[in-house]
Protein backbone atom coordinates (compact mmCIF):
# COMPACT_ATOMS: atom_id res chain seq x y z
CA UNK A 1 0.00 0.00 0.00
CA UNK A 2 1.90 3.07 -1.28
CA UNK A 3 0.68 5.60 1.28
CA UNK A 4 1.95 8.86 -0.18
CA UNK A 5 0.39 7.94 -3.55
CA UNK A 6 -2.95 7.33 -1.79
CA UNK A 7 -2.67 10.64 0.07
CA UNK A 8 -1.98 12.47 -3.18
CA UNK A 9 -4.94 10.74 -4.86
CA UNK A 10 -7.28 11.64 -1.98
CA UNK A 11 -6.11 15.26 -2.03
CA UNK A 12 -6.59 15.47 -5.81
CA UNK A 13 -10.10 13.99 -5.74
CA UNK A 14 -11.15 16.31 -2.90
CA UNK A 15 -9.82 19.36 -4.71
CA UNK A 16 -11.60 18.37 -7.95
CA UNK A 17 -14.90 17.67 -6.18
CA UNK A 18 -14.85 20.99 -4.35
CA UNK A 19 -13.96 22.84 -7.57
CA UNK A 20 -16.91 21.13 -9.30
CA UNK A 21 -19.61 21.71 -6.75
CA UNK A 22 -18.69 24.78 -4.68
CA UNK A 23 -20.21 27.16 -7.23
CA UNK A 24 -22.73 24.69 -8.65
CA UNK A 25 -26.38 25.64 -8.72
CA UNK A 26 -27.16 22.55 -6.71
CA UNK A 27 -25.44 23.98 -3.61
CA UNK A 28 -27.38 27.27 -3.69
CA UNK A 29 -30.03 25.66 -1.46
CA UNK A 30 -27.27 24.63 0.98
CA UNK A 31 -25.84 28.14 1.26
CA UNK A 32 -29.35 29.56 1.73
CA UNK A 33 -30.22 27.08 4.47
CA UNK A 34 -26.89 27.68 6.27
CA UNK A 35 -26.75 31.47 6.14
CA UNK A 36 -30.49 32.13 6.70
CA UNK A 37 -30.29 32.02 10.53
CA UNK A 38 -27.18 34.25 10.47
CA UNK A 39 -29.01 36.80 8.32
CA UNK A 40 -31.98 36.62 10.62
CA UNK A 41 -29.99 37.24 13.77
CA UNK A 42 -27.97 40.01 12.12
CA UNK A 43 -31.25 41.72 11.18
CA UNK A 44 -32.44 41.30 14.77
CA UNK A 45 -29.20 42.78 16.05
CA UNK A 46 -29.75 45.83 13.78
CA UNK A 47 -33.37 46.69 14.35
CA UNK A 48 -33.36 45.92 18.14
CA UNK A 49 -37.08 45.17 17.96
CA UNK A 50 -37.27 43.92 21.54
CA UNK A 51 -38.08 46.45 24.24
CA UNK A 52 -36.88 44.37 27.19
CA UNK A 53 -33.53 42.52 26.80
CA UNK A 54 -34.04 38.90 27.94
CA UNK A 55 -31.60 37.31 30.37
CA UNK A 56 -28.58 35.23 29.31
CA UNK A 57 -30.31 31.97 30.15
CA UNK A 58 -33.25 33.04 27.97
CA UNK A 59 -30.81 33.60 25.11
CA UNK A 60 -29.33 30.14 25.67
CA UNK A 61 -32.83 28.69 25.61
CA UNK A 62 -33.69 30.55 22.40
CA UNK A 63 -30.50 29.35 20.74
CA UNK A 64 -31.08 25.78 21.92
CA UNK A 65 -34.54 25.83 20.30
CA UNK A 66 -33.24 27.44 17.11
CA UNK A 67 -30.31 25.00 16.90
CA UNK A 68 -32.15 21.78 17.62
CA UNK A 69 -35.24 22.48 15.54
CA UNK A 70 -34.10 24.49 12.51
CA UNK A 71 -30.29 24.14 12.23
CA UNK A 72 -29.67 20.49 13.18
CA UNK A 73 -32.91 18.87 11.97
CA UNK A 74 -33.64 20.91 8.85
CA UNK A 75 -30.72 22.73 7.31
CA UNK A 76 -27.80 20.43 8.26
CA UNK A 77 -29.79 17.25 7.62
CA UNK A 78 -31.31 18.32 4.28
CA UNK A 79 -28.04 19.86 3.08
CA UNK A 80 -26.13 16.66 3.83
CA UNK A 81 -28.89 14.63 2.15
CA UNK A 82 -28.64 16.77 -1.00
CA UNK A 83 -24.84 17.07 -1.19
CA UNK A 84 -23.72 13.59 -0.21
CA UNK A 85 -26.37 11.59 -2.10
CA UNK A 86 -25.40 13.49 -5.26
CA UNK A 87 -21.72 12.66 -4.85
CA UNK A 88 -22.28 9.36 -6.66
CA UNK A 89 -25.95 9.35 -7.74
CA UNK A 90 -25.39 12.71 -9.43
CA UNK A 91 -22.49 11.28 -11.42
CA UNK A 92 -24.59 8.30 -12.48
CA UNK A 93 -27.46 10.57 -13.58
CA UNK A 94 -25.07 12.90 -15.41
CA UNK A 95 -23.24 9.86 -16.87
CA UNK A 96 -19.77 11.06 -15.72
CA UNK A 97 -18.85 8.35 -13.15
CA UNK A 98 -16.65 6.54 -15.66
CA UNK A 99 -14.04 9.31 -15.54
CA UNK A 100 -13.12 8.22 -11.99
CA UNK A 101 -13.54 4.48 -12.54
CA UNK A 102 -11.04 4.56 -15.42
CA UNK A 103 -8.20 5.79 -13.19
CA UNK A 104 -5.78 3.42 -11.36
CA UNK A 105 -7.19 4.35 -7.95
CA UNK A 106 -8.53 1.92 -5.33
CA UNK A 107 -12.33 2.23 -5.24
CA UNK A 108 -12.23 2.83 -1.48
CA UNK A 109 -9.82 5.73 -2.05
CA UNK A 110 -12.27 7.33 -4.51
CA UNK A 111 -15.03 7.04 -1.89
CA UNK A 112 -12.77 8.57 0.80
CA UNK A 113 -11.69 11.38 -1.53
CA UNK A 114 -15.24 12.37 -2.39
CA UNK A 115 -16.40 11.96 1.23
CA UNK A 116 -13.66 14.21 2.61
CA UNK A 117 -14.48 16.89 0.04
CA UNK A 118 -18.12 16.84 1.18
CA UNK A 119 -17.32 16.79 4.88
CA UNK A 120 -14.76 19.60 4.77
CA UNK A 121 -17.10 21.80 2.72
CA UNK A 122 -20.15 21.15 4.91
CA UNK A 123 -18.19 21.39 8.18
CA UNK A 124 -16.70 24.72 7.10
CA UNK A 125 -20.05 26.18 6.01
CA UNK A 126 -22.07 25.04 9.01
CA UNK A 127 -19.22 25.51 11.49
CA UNK A 128 -18.88 29.19 10.58
CA UNK A 129 -22.63 29.84 10.44
CA UNK A 130 -23.14 28.19 13.86
CA UNK A 131 -20.31 30.30 15.27
CA UNK A 132 -21.69 33.51 13.74
CA UNK A 133 -25.31 32.96 14.75
CA UNK A 134 -24.27 32.02 18.30
CA UNK A 135 -22.18 35.13 18.78
CA UNK A 136 -24.73 37.38 17.09
CA UNK A 137 -27.49 36.16 19.38
CA UNK A 138 -25.55 36.63 22.58
CA UNK A 139 -24.25 40.05 21.45
CA UNK A 140 -27.73 41.38 22.27
CA UNK A 141 -27.11 40.98 26.00
CA UNK A 142 -24.71 43.34 27.88
CA UNK A 143 -23.27 40.58 30.09
CA UNK A 144 -22.04 38.68 27.02
CA UNK A 145 -18.31 38.95 27.78
CA UNK A 146 -18.68 37.71 31.34
CA UNK A 147 -20.88 34.82 30.15
CA UNK A 148 -18.26 33.77 27.64
CA UNK A 149 -15.06 34.24 29.62
CA UNK A 150 -16.14 33.31 33.12
CA UNK A 151 -19.35 31.46 32.44
CA UNK A 152 -19.98 28.33 30.30
CA UNK A 153 -20.44 30.37 27.08
CA UNK A 154 -17.26 29.13 25.41
CA UNK A 155 -17.91 25.45 26.20
CA UNK A 156 -21.51 25.83 24.88
CA UNK A 157 -20.19 27.29 21.63
CA UNK A 158 -17.57 24.51 21.36
CA UNK A 159 -20.26 21.87 21.87
CA UNK A 160 -22.52 23.34 19.19
CA UNK A 161 -19.73 23.55 16.59
CA UNK A 162 -18.57 20.00 17.44
CA UNK A 163 -22.12 18.65 17.09
CA UNK A 164 -22.59 20.34 13.71
CA UNK A 165 -19.31 18.89 12.37
CA UNK A 166 -20.10 15.39 13.69
CA UNK A 167 -23.61 15.61 12.21
CA UNK A 168 -22.11 16.40 8.79
CA UNK A 169 -19.68 13.48 9.19
CA UNK A 170 -22.29 10.90 10.18
CA UNK A 171 -25.15 11.94 7.89
CA UNK A 172 -22.62 12.49 5.11
CA UNK A 173 -21.53 8.85 5.22
CA UNK A 174 -25.11 7.57 5.38
CA UNK A 175 -26.29 9.60 2.37
CA UNK A 176 -23.20 8.82 0.30
CA UNK A 177 -23.99 5.13 0.63
CA UNK A 178 -27.70 5.82 -0.06
CA UNK A 179 -26.69 7.68 -3.23
CA UNK A 180 -24.70 4.65 -4.39
CA UNK A 181 -27.39 2.08 -3.63
CA UNK A 182 -30.73 3.72 -4.43
CA UNK A 183 -31.87 5.04 -7.75
CA UNK A 184 -33.91 7.69 -5.93
CA UNK A 185 -32.03 8.67 -2.74
CA UNK A 186 -34.77 11.17 -1.76
CA UNK A 187 -36.93 8.27 -0.53
CA UNK A 188 -34.05 7.03 1.64
CA UNK A 189 -33.46 10.61 2.87
CA UNK A 190 -37.12 10.87 3.90
CA UNK A 191 -37.07 7.57 5.83
CA UNK A 192 -33.79 8.37 7.65
CA UNK A 193 -35.16 11.88 8.26
CA UNK A 194 -38.27 10.63 10.03
CA UNK A 195 -36.23 8.08 12.05
CA UNK A 196 -33.76 10.74 13.22
CA UNK A 197 -36.23 13.59 13.76
CA UNK A 198 -38.57 11.61 16.05
CA UNK A 199 -35.86 9.61 17.78
CA UNK A 200 -37.13 10.75 21.18
CA UNK A 201 -40.37 8.75 20.94
CA UNK A 202 -38.48 5.49 20.39
CA UNK A 203 -37.88 3.04 23.27
CA UNK A 204 -34.42 3.14 24.88
CA UNK A 205 -32.71 0.38 22.90
CA UNK A 206 -33.88 1.81 19.54
CA UNK A 207 -32.87 5.32 20.60
CA UNK A 208 -29.31 4.09 20.99
CA UNK A 209 -29.40 3.19 17.24
CA UNK A 210 -30.02 6.75 16.10
CA UNK A 211 -27.24 9.24 15.42
CA UNK A 212 -29.34 12.02 16.96
CA UNK A 213 -29.16 10.41 20.42
CA UNK A 214 -25.37 10.67 20.49
CA UNK A 215 -25.40 14.19 19.08
CA UNK A 216 -28.02 15.13 21.67
CA UNK A 217 -25.81 13.77 24.47
CA UNK A 218 -23.16 16.34 23.52
CA UNK A 219 -25.50 19.34 23.60
CA UNK A 220 -25.43 21.59 26.71
CA UNK A 221 -29.19 22.19 26.93
CA UNK A 222 -31.88 19.64 26.20
CA UNK A 223 -35.14 21.26 25.14
CA UNK A 224 -38.49 19.87 26.21
CA UNK A 225 -39.77 17.44 23.56
CA UNK A 226 -43.41 17.40 24.50
CA UNK A 227 -45.56 14.66 26.09
CA UNK A 228 -44.56 11.57 24.08
CA UNK A 229 -40.78 11.87 24.56
CA UNK A 230 -38.93 9.05 26.30
CA UNK A 231 -36.12 10.71 28.23
CA UNK A 232 -33.06 8.49 28.70
CA UNK A 233 -29.76 9.50 30.28
CA UNK A 234 -27.23 10.69 27.67
CA UNK A 235 -24.15 8.57 26.86
CA UNK A 236 -20.92 10.10 28.14
CA UNK A 237 -19.47 12.61 25.64
CA UNK A 238 -16.24 10.80 24.75
CA UNK A 239 -18.12 7.61 23.86
CA UNK A 240 -20.70 9.62 21.87
CA UNK A 241 -18.00 11.26 19.76
CA UNK A 242 -16.36 7.88 19.11
CA UNK A 243 -19.67 6.26 18.15
CA UNK A 244 -20.51 9.01 15.65
CA UNK A 245 -17.04 8.86 14.11
CA UNK A 246 -17.36 5.07 13.99
CA UNK A 247 -20.67 5.40 12.12
CA UNK A 248 -19.09 7.77 9.60
CA UNK A 249 -16.04 5.53 8.99
CA UNK A 250 -18.27 2.45 8.71
CA UNK A 251 -20.48 3.97 6.02
CA UNK A 252 -17.51 5.29 4.03
CA UNK A 253 -15.91 1.83 4.10
CA UNK A 254 -19.21 0.26 2.91
CA UNK A 255 -19.44 2.82 0.12
CA UNK A 256 -15.97 1.80 -1.03
CA UNK A 257 -17.02 -1.86 -1.15
CA UNK A 258 -20.21 -1.04 -3.11
CA UNK A 259 -18.26 1.16 -5.52
CA UNK A 260 -15.95 -1.77 -6.20
CA UNK A 261 -18.88 -3.72 -7.63
CA UNK A 262 -20.54 -0.78 -9.40
CA UNK A 263 -20.79 -1.16 -13.18
CA UNK A 264 -21.31 1.52 -15.79
CA UNK A 265 -24.64 0.79 -17.46
CA UNK A 266 -26.15 4.25 -17.59
CA UNK A 267 -29.80 3.47 -18.21
CA UNK A 268 -31.50 5.84 -20.59
CA UNK A 269 -34.45 6.84 -18.51
Amino acid at each position, binding site marked *: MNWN*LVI*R*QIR*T*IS*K*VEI*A*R*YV*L*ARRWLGVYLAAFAPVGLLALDRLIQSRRTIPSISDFSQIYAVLFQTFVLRLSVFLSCALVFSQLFRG*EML*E*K*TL*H*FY*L*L*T*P*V*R*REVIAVGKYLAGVTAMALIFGTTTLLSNLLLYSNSPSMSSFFFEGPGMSYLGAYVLVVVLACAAYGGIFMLAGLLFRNPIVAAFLVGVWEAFYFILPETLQKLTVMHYLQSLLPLVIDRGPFSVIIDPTNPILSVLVVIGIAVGFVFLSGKVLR*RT*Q*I*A*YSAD
Partner: protein
Amino acid sequence: MASSEDRQIVFDNVSKSYGEVLGVNHVNLSLEPGITSLVGPNGAGKTTLMNLMTGLLRPSKGTVSVLGVSPSDPEVFYRNIGYCSQFEAFPRGLSGYQMVHSTLMLHGLSPQKAEERSWNVIERVGMTEAARRRVAGYSKGMRQRIRLALALAHDPKVLVLDEPLNGLDPMARNEAIELFRKFAESGMHVVISSHIMHEVDIISDRVVMMSGGYVVAEGDIQGVRHEMEEHPIQILIRCDRPGLIAANVFEQDSVVEARIHSDGLGLLVSTRDPDRFYDLLNRIILQHRISIEAVSPADENVHAVYQYLVGGNGMGTS
Protein backbone atom coordinates in the same frame (compact mmCIF):
# COMPACT_ATOMS: atom_id res chain seq x y z
CA MET B 1 9.90 -15.11 -22.65
CA ALA B 2 6.59 -13.48 -21.67
CA SER B 3 3.81 -15.90 -22.51
CA SER B 4 1.55 -14.82 -25.38
CA GLU B 5 -1.09 -14.09 -22.73
CA ASP B 6 0.85 -11.04 -21.54
CA ARG B 7 0.82 -9.43 -25.00
CA GLN B 8 -2.82 -10.05 -25.92
CA ILE B 9 -6.31 -8.92 -25.07
CA VAL B 10 -8.16 -12.16 -24.34
CA PHE B 11 -11.91 -12.79 -24.22
CA ASP B 12 -12.54 -16.35 -22.97
CA ASN B 13 -16.16 -17.39 -23.81
CA VAL B 14 -17.52 -14.08 -22.51
CA SER B 15 -21.26 -13.35 -22.31
CA LYS B 16 -22.91 -10.24 -20.86
CA SER B 17 -26.59 -9.37 -20.55
CA TYR B 18 -28.41 -6.57 -18.69
CA GLY B 19 -31.62 -8.15 -17.39
CA GLU B 20 -33.12 -9.75 -20.48
CA VAL B 21 -31.34 -7.36 -22.89
CA LEU B 22 -28.54 -9.36 -24.58
CA GLY B 23 -25.23 -7.45 -24.68
CA VAL B 24 -22.73 -9.93 -26.14
CA ASN B 25 -22.80 -13.74 -26.32
CA HIS B 26 -20.03 -16.40 -26.37
CA VAL B 27 -17.24 -14.04 -27.44
CA ASN B 28 -13.82 -15.70 -27.89
CA LEU B 29 -11.07 -13.32 -28.99
CA SER B 30 -7.31 -12.98 -28.53
CA LEU B 31 -6.15 -9.74 -30.08
CA GLU B 32 -2.55 -9.08 -31.06
CA PRO B 33 -0.97 -5.59 -30.85
CA GLY B 34 -1.77 -3.28 -33.81
CA ILE B 35 -5.00 -1.64 -34.94
CA THR B 36 -8.15 -3.76 -34.49
CA SER B 37 -11.35 -2.29 -35.90
CA LEU B 38 -14.69 -3.19 -34.34
CA VAL B 39 -17.54 -2.85 -36.84
CA GLY B 40 -21.23 -3.72 -36.77
CA PRO B 41 -24.65 -1.99 -36.76
CA ASN B 42 -25.88 0.05 -33.77
CA GLY B 43 -26.78 -2.27 -30.91
CA ALA B 44 -24.56 -5.09 -32.21
CA GLY B 45 -22.64 -5.09 -28.90
CA LYS B 46 -19.56 -3.05 -29.86
CA THR B 47 -19.83 -0.66 -26.91
CA THR B 48 -20.61 -3.56 -24.54
CA LEU B 49 -17.46 -5.33 -25.75
CA MET B 50 -15.39 -2.19 -25.18
CA ASN B 51 -16.86 -1.60 -21.72
CA LEU B 52 -15.99 -5.22 -20.86
CA MET B 53 -12.46 -4.74 -22.22
CA THR B 54 -11.96 -1.64 -20.04
CA GLY B 55 -13.47 -3.07 -16.86
CA LEU B 56 -16.47 -0.73 -16.76
CA LEU B 57 -18.65 -3.85 -17.07
CA ARG B 58 -18.08 -7.31 -15.56
CA PRO B 59 -18.91 -10.32 -17.75
CA SER B 60 -21.95 -12.44 -16.75
CA LYS B 61 -19.99 -15.49 -17.96
CA GLY B 62 -16.35 -16.07 -18.97
CA THR B 63 -13.27 -13.95 -18.23
CA VAL B 64 -11.51 -10.93 -19.77
CA SER B 65 -7.81 -10.17 -19.42
CA VAL B 66 -5.72 -7.39 -20.94
CA LEU B 67 -1.95 -7.93 -21.13
CA GLY B 68 -2.42 -10.66 -18.53
CA VAL B 69 -4.09 -8.33 -16.00
CA SER B 70 -7.71 -8.78 -14.94
CA PRO B 71 -9.91 -5.67 -14.57
CA SER B 72 -10.76 -6.66 -11.00
CA ASP B 73 -7.67 -4.92 -9.52
CA PRO B 74 -7.94 -1.38 -10.86
CA GLU B 75 -4.65 0.00 -9.46
CA VAL B 76 -2.58 -2.07 -11.94
CA PHE B 77 -5.15 -2.55 -14.73
CA TYR B 78 -5.77 1.12 -15.53
CA ARG B 79 -2.07 2.04 -15.70
CA ASN B 80 -1.84 0.49 -19.14
CA ILE B 81 -5.32 1.23 -20.51
CA GLY B 82 -6.74 4.42 -22.02
CA TYR B 83 -10.45 4.51 -22.94
CA CYS B 84 -12.02 7.23 -25.06
CA SER B 85 -15.70 6.49 -24.57
CA GLN B 86 -18.79 7.53 -26.51
CA PHE B 87 -20.48 9.08 -23.44
CA GLU B 88 -21.33 12.70 -24.26
CA ALA B 89 -21.47 14.11 -20.73
CA PHE B 90 -18.69 15.96 -18.90
CA PRO B 91 -18.42 17.04 -15.24
CA ARG B 92 -19.78 20.59 -15.04
CA GLY B 93 -17.60 23.32 -13.60
CA LEU B 94 -14.25 21.91 -14.78
CA SER B 95 -12.02 23.03 -17.64
CA GLY B 96 -10.37 20.67 -20.11
CA TYR B 97 -6.95 21.32 -18.57
CA GLN B 98 -8.17 20.64 -15.03
CA MET B 99 -9.55 17.25 -16.12
CA VAL B 100 -6.34 16.11 -17.83
CA HIS B 101 -4.16 17.45 -15.01
CA SER B 102 -6.20 15.79 -12.22
CA THR B 103 -6.27 12.46 -14.12
CA LEU B 104 -2.47 12.51 -14.32
CA MET B 105 -2.23 13.35 -10.63
CA LEU B 106 -4.36 10.28 -9.90
CA HIS B 107 -1.80 8.30 -11.87
CA GLY B 108 0.72 9.46 -9.27
CA LEU B 109 2.64 12.12 -11.22
CA SER B 110 4.00 15.11 -9.29
CA PRO B 111 2.08 18.38 -9.91
CA GLN B 112 4.88 19.82 -12.10
CA LYS B 113 5.28 16.68 -14.24
CA ALA B 114 1.48 16.37 -14.50
CA GLU B 115 1.22 19.98 -15.66
CA GLU B 116 3.98 19.60 -18.24
CA ARG B 117 2.56 16.36 -19.66
CA SER B 118 -0.99 17.79 -19.63
CA TRP B 119 -0.01 20.69 -21.89
CA ASN B 120 1.95 18.26 -24.06
CA VAL B 121 -1.06 15.99 -24.70
CA ILE B 122 -3.49 18.93 -24.98
CA GLU B 123 -1.24 20.45 -27.62
CA ARG B 124 -1.15 17.09 -29.43
CA VAL B 125 -4.96 17.07 -29.78
CA GLY B 126 -4.94 20.75 -30.83
CA MET B 127 -6.84 22.15 -27.85
CA THR B 128 -4.19 24.48 -26.45
CA GLU B 129 -6.15 27.75 -26.64
CA ALA B 130 -9.55 26.30 -25.56
CA ALA B 131 -8.24 24.12 -22.69
CA ARG B 132 -8.68 26.85 -20.05
CA ARG B 133 -12.42 27.28 -20.81
CA ARG B 134 -15.07 25.11 -19.08
CA VAL B 135 -15.83 21.87 -20.94
CA ALA B 136 -19.58 22.62 -20.71
CA GLY B 137 -19.03 25.34 -23.35
CA TYR B 138 -17.12 23.11 -25.79
CA SER B 139 -18.50 22.04 -29.17
CA LYS B 140 -18.91 18.32 -29.94
CA GLY B 141 -15.57 18.11 -31.75
CA MET B 142 -13.67 19.85 -28.94
CA ARG B 143 -15.18 17.48 -26.35
CA GLN B 144 -14.04 14.54 -28.50
CA ARG B 145 -10.48 15.94 -28.55
CA ILE B 146 -10.43 16.27 -24.75
CA ARG B 147 -11.67 12.69 -24.41
CA LEU B 148 -8.81 11.61 -26.68
CA ALA B 149 -6.34 13.60 -24.56
CA LEU B 150 -7.66 11.89 -21.39
CA ALA B 151 -7.13 8.48 -23.00
CA LEU B 152 -3.59 9.31 -24.22
CA ALA B 153 -2.30 11.34 -21.26
CA HIS B 154 -0.70 8.50 -19.28
CA ASP B 155 0.93 6.81 -22.34
CA PRO B 156 -1.11 3.58 -22.08
CA LYS B 157 -0.03 0.33 -23.78
CA VAL B 158 -3.66 -0.37 -24.78
CA LEU B 159 -5.88 2.29 -26.36
CA VAL B 160 -9.61 1.57 -26.59
CA LEU B 161 -11.51 4.13 -28.70
CA ASP B 162 -15.31 4.11 -29.21
CA GLU B 163 -15.93 5.92 -32.54
CA PRO B 164 -12.95 8.26 -31.86
CA LEU B 165 -13.41 10.27 -35.07
CA ASN B 166 -17.10 11.01 -34.40
CA GLY B 167 -17.51 14.78 -34.60
CA LEU B 168 -13.92 15.56 -35.64
CA ASP B 169 -13.37 17.76 -38.70
CA PRO B 170 -11.61 16.25 -41.73
CA MET B 171 -8.17 17.59 -40.82
CA ALA B 172 -8.41 16.34 -37.25
CA ARG B 173 -9.58 12.95 -38.59
CA ASN B 174 -6.41 12.59 -40.68
CA GLU B 175 -4.17 13.67 -37.80
CA ALA B 176 -5.92 11.19 -35.49
CA ILE B 177 -5.58 8.34 -38.03
CA GLU B 178 -1.85 9.12 -38.36
CA LEU B 179 -1.53 9.17 -34.57
CA PHE B 180 -3.22 5.77 -34.19
CA ARG B 181 -1.04 4.30 -36.98
CA LYS B 182 2.10 5.53 -35.16
CA PHE B 183 0.90 3.98 -31.88
CA ALA B 184 0.18 0.64 -33.58
CA GLU B 185 3.63 0.60 -35.21
CA SER B 186 5.23 1.20 -31.77
CA GLY B 187 3.69 -2.09 -30.60
CA MET B 188 0.61 -0.74 -28.81
CA HIS B 189 -2.88 -2.21 -28.95
CA VAL B 190 -5.33 0.19 -30.62
CA VAL B 191 -8.97 -1.02 -30.61
CA ILE B 192 -11.26 1.30 -32.61
CA SER B 193 -15.00 1.01 -33.21
CA SER B 194 -16.23 2.88 -36.26
CA HIS B 195 -19.07 3.13 -38.77
CA ILE B 196 -17.09 4.88 -41.50
CA MET B 197 -16.08 1.92 -43.62
CA HIS B 198 -13.60 3.65 -45.92
CA GLU B 199 -11.69 4.88 -42.85
CA VAL B 200 -11.75 1.38 -41.33
CA ASP B 201 -10.33 0.20 -44.66
CA ILE B 202 -7.31 2.49 -44.44
CA ILE B 203 -6.57 2.14 -40.72
CA SER B 204 -7.05 -1.43 -39.58
CA ASP B 205 -4.66 -4.35 -39.48
CA ARG B 206 -7.55 -6.63 -38.55
CA VAL B 207 -11.32 -6.41 -38.22
CA VAL B 208 -13.78 -7.86 -35.68
CA MET B 209 -17.29 -7.80 -37.13
CA MET B 210 -20.25 -8.06 -34.75
CA SER B 211 -23.97 -8.48 -35.32
CA GLY B 212 -26.72 -9.04 -32.76
CA GLY B 213 -24.22 -9.59 -29.92
CA TYR B 214 -22.20 -12.29 -31.74
CA VAL B 215 -18.78 -12.04 -33.40
CA VAL B 216 -19.57 -12.97 -37.00
CA ALA B 217 -16.09 -12.52 -38.48
CA GLU B 218 -12.58 -11.80 -37.25
CA GLY B 219 -9.26 -11.38 -39.07
CA ASP B 220 -7.63 -9.14 -41.70
CA ILE B 221 -9.99 -7.88 -44.40
CA GLN B 222 -8.65 -9.78 -47.39
CA GLY B 223 -8.39 -12.94 -45.28
CA VAL B 224 -12.02 -12.70 -44.21
CA ARG B 225 -13.08 -11.95 -47.77
CA HIS B 226 -11.44 -15.00 -49.25
CA GLU B 227 -12.78 -17.34 -46.61
CA MET B 228 -16.29 -16.58 -47.83
CA GLU B 229 -16.41 -18.66 -51.00
CA GLU B 230 -20.16 -18.49 -51.34
CA HIS B 231 -19.86 -14.80 -52.30
CA PRO B 232 -17.96 -14.48 -55.64
CA ILE B 233 -15.83 -11.35 -56.19
CA GLN B 234 -17.66 -8.56 -58.04
CA ILE B 235 -15.77 -6.45 -60.59
CA LEU B 236 -17.16 -3.20 -62.03
CA ILE B 237 -16.16 -2.21 -65.60
CA ARG B 238 -17.07 1.21 -67.09
CA CYS B 239 -16.55 1.30 -70.88
CA ASP B 240 -18.29 2.22 -74.18
CA ARG B 241 -19.43 -1.31 -75.24
CA PRO B 242 -20.28 -3.39 -72.10
CA GLY B 243 -22.46 -5.74 -74.16
CA LEU B 244 -19.49 -6.93 -76.18
CA ILE B 245 -17.48 -7.79 -73.03
CA ALA B 246 -20.49 -9.52 -71.49
CA ALA B 247 -20.86 -11.70 -74.59
CA ASN B 248 -17.25 -12.90 -74.41
CA VAL B 249 -16.93 -13.28 -70.65
CA PHE B 250 -19.04 -16.44 -70.19
CA GLU B 251 -16.48 -18.64 -71.92
CA GLN B 252 -14.93 -18.96 -68.44
CA ASP B 253 -17.03 -21.22 -66.21
CA SER B 254 -15.81 -19.39 -63.07
CA VAL B 255 -17.83 -16.35 -64.16
CA VAL B 256 -21.17 -16.51 -62.35
CA GLU B 257 -23.04 -13.38 -63.40
CA ALA B 258 -22.74 -10.31 -65.64
CA ARG B 259 -25.16 -7.38 -65.31
CA ILE B 260 -25.20 -4.34 -67.61
CA HIS B 261 -25.74 -1.04 -65.81
CA SER B 262 -28.95 0.88 -66.65
CA ASP B 263 -26.93 3.75 -68.22
CA GLY B 264 -25.49 1.28 -70.78
CA LEU B 265 -21.90 2.25 -69.94
CA GLY B 266 -21.20 -0.16 -67.08
CA LEU B 267 -20.88 -3.90 -66.53
CA LEU B 268 -20.83 -5.74 -63.16
CA VAL B 269 -19.24 -9.21 -63.36
CA SER B 270 -19.21 -11.78 -60.51
CA THR B 271 -16.49 -14.42 -60.72
CA ARG B 272 -14.98 -17.07 -58.41
CA ASP B 273 -11.51 -16.78 -59.94
CA PRO B 274 -10.51 -13.08 -60.31
CA ASP B 275 -6.94 -13.78 -61.58
CA ARG B 276 -8.00 -15.76 -64.67
CA PHE B 277 -10.81 -13.25 -65.27
CA TYR B 278 -8.43 -10.25 -65.38
CA ASP B 279 -6.24 -12.03 -68.01
CA LEU B 280 -9.34 -12.70 -70.11
CA LEU B 281 -10.61 -9.12 -69.66
CA ASN B 282 -7.30 -7.56 -70.70
CA ARG B 283 -7.25 -9.77 -73.81
CA ILE B 284 -10.80 -8.81 -74.80
CA ILE B 285 -10.03 -5.08 -74.36
CA LEU B 286 -6.98 -5.33 -76.66
CA GLN B 287 -8.69 -7.58 -79.21
CA HIS B 288 -11.79 -5.39 -79.68
CA ARG B 289 -10.14 -2.00 -78.97
CA ILE B 290 -12.72 -1.19 -76.29
CA SER B 291 -12.19 2.29 -74.72
CA ILE B 292 -12.10 1.76 -70.96
CA GLU B 293 -13.24 4.39 -68.45
CA ALA B 294 -12.55 2.35 -65.29
CA VAL B 295 -12.05 -1.16 -63.98
CA SER B 296 -12.29 -1.73 -60.18
CA PRO B 297 -13.12 -4.60 -57.84
CA ALA B 298 -16.45 -3.64 -56.34
CA ASP B 299 -16.05 -5.29 -52.97
CA GLU B 300 -12.48 -5.67 -51.85
CA ASN B 301 -13.25 -3.31 -48.94
CA VAL B 302 -14.82 -3.82 -45.52
CA HIS B 303 -18.08 -2.28 -46.60
CA ALA B 304 -18.89 -5.08 -49.01
CA VAL B 305 -17.93 -7.76 -46.47
CA TYR B 306 -20.14 -5.91 -44.00
CA GLN B 307 -23.03 -5.95 -46.47
CA TYR B 308 -22.77 -9.68 -47.06
CA LEU B 309 -22.37 -10.71 -43.41
CA VAL B 310 -24.54 -8.14 -41.69
CA GLY B 311 -26.46 -6.98 -44.72
CA GLY B 312 -29.75 -5.13 -44.65
CA ASN B 313 -29.98 -1.60 -46.07
CA GLY B 314 -33.22 -0.90 -44.20
CA MET B 315 -33.15 0.35 -40.65
CA GLY B 316 -30.37 -1.98 -39.52
CA THR B 317 -31.11 -5.56 -38.59
CA SER B 318 -30.84 -5.26 -34.80
